[in-house]
């Protein structure tokens, strides 16, 4: 995996993470260097597109709320975040983690924050998939008399 792919993955994970879970794991990690804002957290909208017939020409489905933030650590790394929703603390934490994942603390941070976050999100998804699977139905066509 390239560095860009790895970064895409953690940024995507942070964008979709439940803010409360990230807050808890981040607080437990504790060890955060000082930072300054390059762009203070700002809530906005992103127009979500779909495609006609799922595969055809794009159309505008509607917007979703997104909060973005950019920070610079005192050690020099720059972190960006685009996260779902309007939680400014969540966006700030995500930008801090993005910056720290480029530095010496990357491995510790992955083990303490990103991996448990991913496991939790996967577990939620797996439970919903399992519940969906339990509602899978086999329809039988009844044989009718006239044949």
């Amino acid at each position, binding site marked *: 995996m390239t560095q*860009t792919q790895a*970064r*895409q993955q953690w*940024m*995507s994970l942070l*964008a*979709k993470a439940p803010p409360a879970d990230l807050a808890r794991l981040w607080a437990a990690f504790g060890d955060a260097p000082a930072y300054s804002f390059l762009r203070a957290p*700002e*809530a*906005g*909208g*992103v*127009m*979500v*597109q*779909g*495609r*006609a*017939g*799922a*595969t*055809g*020409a*794009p*159309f*505008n*489905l*509607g*917007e*979703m*709320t*997104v909060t*973005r933030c*950019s920070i610079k650590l005192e050690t020099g790394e720059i972190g*960006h975040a*685009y*996260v*779902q*929703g*309007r939680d400014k603390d969540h966006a700030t934490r995500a930008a801090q983690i993005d910056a720290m994942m480029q530095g010496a603390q990357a491995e510790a941070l992955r083990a303490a924050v990103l991996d448990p976050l991913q496991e939790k999100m996967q577990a939620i*998804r*797996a*439970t*919903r*998939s*399992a*519940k*969906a*699977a*339990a*509602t*899978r*139905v*086999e*329809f039988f*066509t009844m044989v009718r008399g006239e044949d």
Partner: protein
Amino acid sequence: MYVAVKGGERAIDNAHAWLAEERRGDPTVPELSVAQIREQMALAVNRVMTEGSLYDPDLAALAIKQARGDLIEAIFLIRAYRTTLPRFGSSVPVKTAEMACERRISATFKDAPGGQVLGPTFDYTHRLLDFKLAAEGETPTAPEGEARREPTPHITGFLNREGLIQTEDESGETPPDLTREPMELPAARALRLQALTRGDEGFVLGLAYSTQRGYARNHAFVGELRIGTVAVEMDIPELGFAIEIGEITVTECESVNQFKGSKTEPPQFTRGYGLVFGQTERKAISMALVDRALRWKELGEDDQGAPAQDEEFVLMHCDNIQATGFLEHIKLPHYVDFQSELELVRKLRRAAGAEEVKEAAQ
């Protein structure tokens, strides 16, 4: 014409104070929290997000609370809020083929690859009031099965293999956006789909029903209905690559319609498409049927003069915020306007009276 009036400030303040009191209701009954609405009135939240055209369950729940459960008022609040948000950009089109499906049914293929998955549906319930829900304290749990790992393929893909269905070819063009430019008619399909997805559920449902009853009959089957989560991806300019910026639940309906062929198209199945935020399947199916009816021109069909075929009629009237804005403004003071009407009617009556006197005299 509306002429401004002034005055009544104290009455208005007091009316709003009473509104707040009525909103709270009986203070001996516990107050509803926004989280309770989000979790337990989820389908109302989904409707407000879809027609409010903003995916944010917490905001939609807050709007429902503020609007005392009036969903059109809640949609109005969301639309107003939406205009205050800076637009960061547009997403890459969502890939519904990669949806984590929680419900997926086909009315056309019994043995659909990927299976018929009912999900948390009202279908097959008996529609009898459940008085157990009136008692509090139940925390039901659903059984679990063997989860499916691979993505669920779209049903229309199977018909495509035989060439029996009209194809939807990918394009990279930038779609028109009716929140940025006023709607122009005739509208491209992309603009029609945007208007329909945020259109009023009741209006779109009524139009869809009219096509089933024979107005622009196009005999739709639900080829596929799927509900689940999709990732939303966006190119981030400062990074130079795309990331997922969130995950949303959507409902998608693909209708498959009988088509005998026309001067320009061979006999084949044609398609209508519905895509909406949240679990909102009545709306998704309705949207697909109306989308199909509006496609008569590009498919070389006859104009049957049906309302659902009339692009201007459908697109200019499906937005419940535009509709209610114009409808409800007539209850605001129109005193000057009405005064002139009153003068006119009096004058006409005087003239008619004089005429009668003249006739009687003859």
